[in-house]
């Protein structure tokens, strides 16, 4: 079982300016959804962006303690646009 706050702390620690939101999908503390907004993602491919988030979680992923992680990554600009799109949708 993983403490969602610890999950968040690790990602924030790895990506200094990251804005991270974590959701426990099943209430079992092993399936999480995470949204990460960071300027570190600028100019990086999506694979590289996800790798940056996976890096501080390697041990949990290896042991299977972290069984599933649904991940969305945004640069601050992309996140701003995504939010504008959301508010415009009827």
């Amino acid at each position, binding site marked *: 079982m993983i403490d969602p706050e610890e999950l968040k702390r690790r990602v924030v620690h790895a990506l200094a300016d990251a804005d991270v939101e974590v959701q426990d999908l099943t209430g079992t503390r092993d399936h999480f959804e995470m949204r990460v907004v960071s300027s570190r993602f600028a100019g990086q491919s*999506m*694979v590289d962006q*996800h*790798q940056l988030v*996976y890096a501080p*979680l*390697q041990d949990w*992923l*290896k042991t299977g303690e972290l069984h*599933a*992680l*649904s*991940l*969305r990554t945004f640069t601050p600009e992309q996140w701003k646009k995504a939010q504008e799109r959301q508010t415009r949708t009827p």
Partner: protein
Amino acid sequence: MTPELKSRFDDAVQKHPVVLFMKGNALFPRCGFSAAAVQILQQYGPVHTVDVLAEPDVREAIKEYTHWPTIPQAFIRGKFVGGSDILRDLEERGELEAMIKGTEGG
């Protein structure tokens, strides 16, 4: 990862335009993320799937091959593109079809 598996992966991703390493197969996916990935990809044509549950050594080796910790894993035209979240995002941005058809800009 054995050299045999590495060359098997090299061959598979070169031979088929779209390859998905997944849990189960297209008809019977055995994980929600694998199901979502195969469903997104199949809209644009045939998908060559490899069931990692049937081959435990493949399941571990593919993670080393791509340095990617989770399944599913998709390759388009020989290039690793990521897992189900990335496929969903590419689909939402309208970029996936061009990648598969090889008509993306640049």
